[in-house]
């Protein structure tokens, strides 16, 4: 099977795979989806024609959590093999779920996968009592706050964007946003196999960042952070330093620039997002930030850090129904309830949406709340 002029075996070093099965063993969706990543590693190696990929609808169940990659004893990247196989379907144009096609087409047309107009990207700032600098209005700032598509458009996550503003303003941070000129970072487009679209977004975004001379960036979403930090350099020169907001806040807290006074009086647990945790080993910073909030009793779930159970929000799952069966987000809410948590703290827009949905479907409404770390900070200001 070929990809971009070389065989899958060459590109992904598939002869090194010893078929141990640790990848499938740790796979988020293996209990309900026919997706067998160990088998994919073998199929990609032995098949001459890529026609077989057209029969693999389960490829779309992968959340790209990266558990498989993080556990491979041979250092291989099964998650990227799945993404590359998705790429074959994307280039064929067939076997791609309709809702995923719509999300991709929306990104080309509107600069976001949510089917919303680019002109409404800053609607979250309407009737908001805080000042936010728009760099495209001729203002300048040291730091770019990359808001992201989900915090810009989703009503629930817009509250997180507003909490970000309250917290960063309270700490006196000088930052600006790109307003309606901000476009999708492309993280999920890569994950969905549309590498051509990802490359196009990288080119456009790097040009935009250069135009505004961006040297420092902070993101709300771990997916945006991961794309800028680890994937953009493949297609262009990344002339800026990027941090996830939890990393940025740890510095603010160390410098005593964040005054948190109100006691929250809640039992809080933290759900490690895959794109901060498994992909980037960022485990301590979010916990340090939570520790700084007064009146919080922190409890740790059994499956935490590298073992955190993926919420099923990544890998295009925000625009895809996925395999039938229990949502892992529901399992996660039960994990939290087991620890007596009243609040599940999250640091990712996708985790926010999947877990909040799961609280309702699992019947914990009124018992457990899902809050972004930024929201908890904002409440404690």
């Amino acid at each position, binding site marked *: 099977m070929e990809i971009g002029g070389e065989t899958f075996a060459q590109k992904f070093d598939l002869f090194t795979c010893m078929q141990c099965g640790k990848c499938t063993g740790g796979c988020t969706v293996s209990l309900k989806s026919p997706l067998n990543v160990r088998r994919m590693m073998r199929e990609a190696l032995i098949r001459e024609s890529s026609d077989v990929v057209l029969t693999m609808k389960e490829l779309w169940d992968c959340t790209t959590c990266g558990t498989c990659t993080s556990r491979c004893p041979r250092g291989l990247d099964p998650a990227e093999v799945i993404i590359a196989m998705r790429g074959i379907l*994307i280039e064929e*144009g067939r076997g791609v779920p309709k809702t995923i*096609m719509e999300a991709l087409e929306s990104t080309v*047309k*509107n600069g976001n996968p949510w089917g919303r107009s*680019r002109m409404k990207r800053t609607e979250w700032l309407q009737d908001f009592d805080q000042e936010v600098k728009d760099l495209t209005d001729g203002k300048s700032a040291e730091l770019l706050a990359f808001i992201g598509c989900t915090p810009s458009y989703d009503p629930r996550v817009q509250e997180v964007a507003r909490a970000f503003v309250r917290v960063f303003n309270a700490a006196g941070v000088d930052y600006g946003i790109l307003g309606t000129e901000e476009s999708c970072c492309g993280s999920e487009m890569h994950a969905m196999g*549309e590498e*051509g*679209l990802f490359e196009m977004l990288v080119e456009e975004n790097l040009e935009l960042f250069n135009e505004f001379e961006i040297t420092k960036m902070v993101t709300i979403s771990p997916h945006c952070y991961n794309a800028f930090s680890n994937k953009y350099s493949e297609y262009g020169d990344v002339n800026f330093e990027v941090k996830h907001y939890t990393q940025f806040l740890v510095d603010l807290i160390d410098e005593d620039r964040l005054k948190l006074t109100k006691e929250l009086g809640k039992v809080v647990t933290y759900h490690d997002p895959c794109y901060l945790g498994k992909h980037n080993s960022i485990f301590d910073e979010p916990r340090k930030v939570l520790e700084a909030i007064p009146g919080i009793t922190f409890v740790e779930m059994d499956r935490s850090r590298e073992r955190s159970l993926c919420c099923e929000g990544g890998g295009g799952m925000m625009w895809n129904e996925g395999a039938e069966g229990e949502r892992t987000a529901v399992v996660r809410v039960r994990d939290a309830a087991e620890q007596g948590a009243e609040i599940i703290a999250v640091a990712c827009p996708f985790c926010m949406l999947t877990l909040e949905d799961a609280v309702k479907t699992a019947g914990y409404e009124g018992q457990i709340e899902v809050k972004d770390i930024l929201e908890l900070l904002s409440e404690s200001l």
Partner: protein
Amino acid sequence: MDIIVCVKRVPDTSEADVVITGKDIKKDDLPFEINEWDNYAVEEAVQLKEKFGGTITVISVGDEDANEVIRRGLAMGADEGVRIYDPAIEGSDGVTIAKILAAAIKNMKYDLILTGAQAGDLGEGIVPVALAEMLGIPHATLVTGLEIQDGKAKVKRELEGGLMEVLEIDLPAVIGIQTGINEPRYVSIMGIRKASKKEIKLLGLDDIGLTPEDVGEAGSLTVLEELSIPPVTKVAEIIEGDPAEAASKLAEILKEQGVL
């Protein structure tokens, strides 16, 4: 089987704050795309080509920007792209667009012409019918099913109330494609990039034997006089009573309004 597909580039107004400027709406902030009906037409053509072989030519009347939708057609599987333009064409009504297309198409080799049943901006549904008349060939519109056999097309036409009409039509013919006839494939960015390498043939009025007087407002049967946003009013009548009473009152209202 040689197929010609007519495509149009239209704005997406789903979230637009509609602002009238003169006799048009303000389009600077709007995203543009291939007319949804035309996308189904291109997909239908590609599926026919996959079955019967032959070539597909995608044709559009429009300025440089129209190349975007022609390229998309090429990326989906079309073989040739043709664009017709002259500034004099601006302001042409639907019949005139059909005239322009007919002038170009009559010199081409084809077994079947597909168009979208209507366009998402003006929604007139004129082109497939007028085009067929001008070329002197039969047509069918609002087609939701298309089968080709022995030089004839068997089409399913969407009528009102869930009714479907089945017609047999001799080829060559013009078919106006309705949405939902198929599931259009995904067109990747890499696919569009590859298609961009293909040259799109540009035709002017001279090339198709028309003069500036034949097109634009000058050549049109209808001229747009005014474009305005209808006044927003609110009329709400709450119908009281138990279900049986309410239903009977509602039926009266619907009869009065001519709906039943």
